[in-house]
């Protein structure tokens, strides 16, 4: 059977209850008649032979780039950079795409007699990956060949000795990136495009940048003018990155970009019901739902978290393209939309969404309240092209437990942001002005970022900035089933049930509002007409 495209269901009397993610769990909610539910397209067919496809892409680049073998020669300095733990979500079953691509690149480099090769995880201001995470992403063969010799490194945005300032763009934006990468004869960037936002010039200009460079586009003003940042032409975030990327190219940094796309086969067969339409649940799906939701309800959050974070996604590669950054990214974006695009007609008064246990910044970690806000208002809200799914002044209803729990090793600055900043204001612009600088330059956070596995001190600010567009657009944000104190701290309204939330929403959008539910994950992009 050919795969089915995305689908917008109009809820009627016969519609069974709809699945809502609820952090480390899920629940079924009965939506009012006339509501719409947006379902993701079914997974595209995976490439039959990923290794052969990667090799073909490297030998047949797009844009103004020679085939990779022609760019490799003995005595050259080669740096291979790759996306970090934040992609893909959930982490994919071995072999990871990065392993497949980098092994192929290294095969060609070995054939060409290249000796000076360094691998860099493009972390930007994210936490450093653990050995287990690196081994999972790259495979033991690569890890054991490079890590013991110090040739597998992780980008350090606070290492003055390994950063190079390449000047400023025409808008005065500082371009400061990893020195080893910038001074190499060839920089190969290995990307995973989970969503349309990823890749392009953002890979190098963000992934290998320093705080000095990142602050030019990771700020409330840029985010408010990125509508959405899943739609590069309409995204100020991308416009800034593109300026920087072109500046990097003009500075003589030769980038060979390799981008890959994934299908929406997000959950293993044991959780197949999570990506099925409810009326198509079979006996096994229903039994799995009943058993898993009952056991998760009774499990301590820590145990439930461990269960969910052990999930490895059966994501499969649907395309790979290599060559010049912009030409590659144009093909990639088209492939991402082909997999994830759903046509939706008209906006809605109320948008509902159940938030899952994972976002790019809590892999093998805890989803703290700031990340909940970022996932709902930053990521899911922005899964659109054209217009947001919810109208201006509309209401966003989230479902997530939103416990005030933090991973002290991964998110130390988040704790202080939650306690010291959000207690003062939730306005992204005010936060940016009053607090960002002190957190970004705090030596303790810098130390934890550089030596431990902590996100940079400024990272919670960026998470809040991701929400800036939604905060400006929405009339109200309501969170169901959450810790009321935590929700109020975020500036949102708590509700105990969907009916209560809908009742509260009518204060903002009036009686008889329209309602749309985003049935994600699996990830989709709403093309709102």
């Amino acid at each position, binding site marked *: *059977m050919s795969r089915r495209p995305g689908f917008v*269901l*109009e*809820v*009627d*009397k*016969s*519609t*069974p*209850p709809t699945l809502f993610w609820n952090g480390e769990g899920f629940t*079924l909610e009965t939506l009012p008649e006339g509501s719409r539910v947006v379902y993701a397209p079914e997974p595209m067919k995976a490439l039959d032979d990923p290794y052969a496809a990667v090799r073909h892409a490297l030998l047949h680049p797009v844009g103004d780039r020679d085939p990779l073998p022609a760019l490799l020669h003995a005595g050259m300095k080669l740096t291979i950079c790759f996306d970090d733990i934040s992609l893909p979500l959930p982490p994919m079953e071995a072999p990871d795409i990065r392993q497949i691509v980098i092994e192929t690149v290294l095969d060609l480099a070995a054939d060409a007699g290249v000796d000076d090769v360094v691998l860099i995880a493009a972390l930007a201001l994210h936490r450093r990956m653990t050995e287990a995470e690196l081994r999972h992403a790259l495979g033991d063969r690569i890890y054991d060949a490079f890590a013991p010799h110090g040739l597998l490194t992780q980008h350090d945005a606070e290492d003055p000795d390994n950063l190079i300032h390449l000047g400023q763009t025409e808008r005065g934006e500082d371009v400061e990136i990893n020195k080893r990468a910038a001074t190499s004869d060839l920089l190969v960037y290995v990307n995973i495009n989970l969503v349309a936002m990823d890749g392009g010039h953002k890979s190098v200009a963000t992934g290998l940048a320093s705080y000095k460079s990142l602050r030019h586009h990771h700020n409330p003003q840029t985010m408010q003018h990125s509508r959405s940042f899943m739609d590069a032409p309409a995204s100020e975030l991308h416009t800034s990155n593109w300026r920087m990327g072109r500046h990097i190219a003009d500075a003589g940094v030769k980038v060979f970009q390799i981008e890959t796309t994934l299908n929406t086969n997000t959950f293993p067969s044991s959780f197949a019901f999570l990506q099925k339409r*409810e*009326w*198509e*649940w079979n*006996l096994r*799906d*229903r039994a799995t*739902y*009943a058993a898993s939701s009952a056991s998760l309800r009774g499990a301590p959050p820590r145990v439930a978290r461990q269960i969910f974070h052990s999930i490895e996604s059966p994501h499969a590669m649907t395309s790979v393209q290599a060559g010049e950054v912009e030409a590659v990214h144009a093909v990639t974006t088209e492939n991402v939309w082909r997999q994830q695009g759903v046509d939706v007609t008209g906006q809605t008064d109320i948008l509902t969404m159940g938030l899952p246990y994972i976002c790019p910044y809590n892999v093998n970690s805890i989803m703290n309240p700031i990340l909940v806000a970022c996932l709902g208002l930053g990521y899911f809200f922005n899964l659109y092209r054209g217009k947001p799914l919810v109208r201006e002044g509309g209401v966003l209803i989230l479902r997530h437990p939103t416990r005030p729990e933090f991973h002290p090793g991964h998110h130390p600055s988040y704790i202080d942001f939650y306690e010291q900043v959000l207690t003062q204001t939730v306005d992204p612009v005010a936060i940016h002005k009053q607090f960002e600088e002190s957190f970004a330059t705090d030596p303790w956070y810098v130390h934890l970022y550089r030596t431990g596995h902590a996100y940079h001190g400024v990272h919670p600010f960026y998470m809040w900035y991701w929400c800036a567009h939604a905060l400006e657009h929405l009339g109200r944000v309501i969170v169901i089933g959450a810790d009321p104190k935590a929700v109020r701290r975020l500036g949102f309204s708590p509700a105990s049930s969907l009916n209560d939330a809908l009742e509260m929403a009518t204060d903002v959008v009036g009686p008889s509002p329209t309602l749309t539910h985003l049935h994600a994950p699996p990830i989709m992009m709403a093309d709102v007409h």
Partner: protein
Amino acid sequence: MARTARFPLAAPSWPASVERPAPDRKIGLEYDHAWSRRYPVRVARAMIMDNVARPVARVLAPATVRGLEHLRHVEGPVIFAANHASHVDTPLVLTNLPVEFRHRTVVAAASDYFFDRTWKSVLWSFSLAAIPIDRSKVNRRSADTAADLIAAGWNLVIFPEGGRSPDGWTQPFHPASAAYLAHRTGRPVIPVYLHGTRRVLPKTAGEPGRAPGGSGTESRRAGRLRRSPISVLFGAPLTPDEGENTRRFADRLEAAVATLAREVRTDWWRARRDVSAADPVAGAAAAHRGPDAPAWRRAWALDAPPPGGRATTWP
């Protein structure tokens, strides 16, 4: 008051706005029945056929078989084209076939009825060596399957009417059935007339949507087996004449079966003589489609003795 289970404990209801897709199961025309012709399955089927089905058939529907001599001079594979009035037609044809044909015969069965559930597909494939065919239209897949099996040496039992007769009178033969397969494979067709099977197991009144026809004359005993004698008549093998198209050949087949039908009630000679001399094909076929009259008169005419009285009395 008993409480009914709700989703997810109960199966989900289906949104009215969403078209319900065909079940994603390998049933119907998609059913893979190759297993039913493997040797161990054939042996098992033959043992059941000879040791269970035939004795039961002898008790339930003692048969008068005529025309077996036609089969002695024909080499398989052949196509048996029979009239169809009851679900017991298939097992009764099979159990009354000579042994050299019986165990190497497949049966064309309606995919929408006999292969609409997995258990039914397995049951009929095993017990009758049934293969699914599309009776609503010409279907390349089912035609290919049947033709391939004939080419592989299997005899085929097929009911060219496409479904059971609602009242016992023969319905027009589909040209895309036995006639088409004979044209395509070059194998002879043996006309078969089954008489009395409608009394053994009548067509139920509750199935008008599943088969063509439905005159309302179905018995109230519908669906219950009843012991009743039957007749099975085999006609002479027919092959398409030079230049004869499938429609004409189908008419000729129908006429041959109709002639056999008259033979049941009279004798071979009178049957031949009664068929219109001017147009034996059209006349014979029309003769067994019954009068154009209300249901009771059609039923009356079906069981009426032929003019001149029955010839089955002792001379």
